[in-house]
């Protein structure tokens, strides 16, 4: 019976402490009864191989012991989808922008990519994953009830999303913001040899004229699109392409502006001349260093524009699963306006 005792000892190790003796006594009784019945049937003692077969049929010690424990999990099935979503968003938010900016620095300004410390990225990812898991495990353990789990109602659920619909509030906000910003932009940055800005005289390179009029034209174009969006609140392929074109031009102009070393000089009664030169160079350098960040931001913005066009085009393909089906046939998108 040595094999049986070893088997029971192995099971005992994994059992809950309070029930150990009780469970082992009962299991031992069952297995001994099985062995004795076989011995009676065969009329002899069982050999080790036969006892081994009985025990193997019973299952591995860990598997047998696990059946006596209630099912345990770190994060339960209710919280798990939220945990997975939060983890994915935090990890993507942590890794992707950093990686894109690192690539942009490599391409545009390799000398200054060092301060992004890519080697720390994995440590950051681990911290994010660890703390997210820890917080959710504590929530699970403390039995926190999710708000709305019991009090939900179909009426409180968000309306069905139509990604091609443009929010009227968004269009109005865009128009208002553009008007306010452009009035301020024109009043302060009207092209000339110098700009007086709160007592500081800023001398700007002549190339600023090109940027100024281009930005003004773009702003007018974007306001025009926003006005059309306000009255026809569905994206159409044509309008989405125009938005991509204007955003592309704007992105190119903005990146060019950062590299143009526009600032020629600063003068103010309170700043000594040498200090003003130093400050001018410093500002130009830091503006140029923003280029990789700007490139990434612009690329993200343009990729949204491109995705919008792809989605709109796919809606018209038979059997396409991208984007929702056009439900409202009276919407301008169908007419291609």
């Amino acid at each position, binding site marked *: 019976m040595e094999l049986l005792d070893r088997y029971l000892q192995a099971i005992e190790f994994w059992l809950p402490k309070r*029930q150990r003796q*009780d*469970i082992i*006594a*009962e*299991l031992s*009784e*069952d*297995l*001994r*009864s*099985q062995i004795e019945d076989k011995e009676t049937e065969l009329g002899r003692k069982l050999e080790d191989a036969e006892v081994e077969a009985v025990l193997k*049929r*019973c*299952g591995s010690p860990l*598997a*047998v012991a696990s*059946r*006596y424990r209630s099912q345990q999990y770190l994060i339960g099935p209710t919280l798990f989808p939220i945990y997975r979503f939060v983890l994915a968003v935090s990890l993507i938010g942590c890794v992707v922008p950093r990686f894109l900016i690192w690539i942009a620095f490599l391409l545009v300004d390799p000398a200054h990519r060092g301060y992004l410390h890519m080697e720390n990225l994995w440590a950051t990812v681990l911290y994010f994953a660890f703390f997210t898991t820890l917080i959710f495990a504590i929530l699970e353990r403390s039995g926190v009830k999710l708000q709305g789990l019991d009090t939900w109602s179909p009426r409180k659920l968000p309306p069905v999303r139509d990604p091609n619909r443009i929010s009227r509030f968004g269009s109005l906000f865009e128009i208002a913001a553009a008007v306010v910003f452009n009035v301020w932009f024109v009043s302060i940055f009207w092209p000339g040899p110098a700009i007086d800005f709160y007592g500081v005289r800023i001398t700007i390179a002549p190339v600023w004229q090109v940027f100024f009029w281009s930005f003004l034209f773009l702003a007018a174009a974007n306001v025009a699109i926003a006005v059309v969006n306000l009255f026809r609140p569905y994206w159409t392929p044509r309008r989405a392409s125009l938005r991509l074109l204007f955003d592309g031009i704007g992105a190119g102009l903005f990146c060019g502006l950062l590299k143009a070393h526009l600032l020629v000089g600063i003068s103010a009664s309170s700043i000594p001349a040498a200090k003003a030169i130093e400050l001018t160079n410093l500002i130009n350098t830091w503006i140029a260093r923003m280029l990789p960040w700007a490139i990434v931001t612009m690329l993200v913005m343009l990729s949204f524009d491109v995705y919008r066009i792809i989605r709109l085009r796919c809606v018209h393909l038979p059997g396409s699963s991208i984007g929702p089906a056009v439900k409202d046939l009276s919407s301008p998108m169908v007419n291609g306006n």
Partner: protein
Amino acid sequence: MSQSNGNHDLFENLRLELRRGCLSLAVLSQLRTERYGYTLRKALAEQGLEIDEGTLYPLLRRLESQGLLTSAWREEEKRNKRFYRLSPEGKLMLKQLGAEWQRINSSLNGIL
């Protein structure tokens, strides 16, 4: 070959799922009279319902913790054995589950 293995695994999973609920009912029904684990297993096996010890004993403990069974250690044939029987709540539950089983069985007979 792998698809056949996949089908076999799927069948095994579904079969286990199907059996799981039935086993509680079968065990409760056999404990109208007092039995200990090994004789209970033998009684079920004789009626065509094999159940291994790794499944039966945790199930007995669960049913006992739910108040459906009572148990007591007693010596029989010079060995200590744990005897189980239905509690009054267990008897009521067996009656209700038996009726539910009959309903499901007759519905499924009609469906299948």
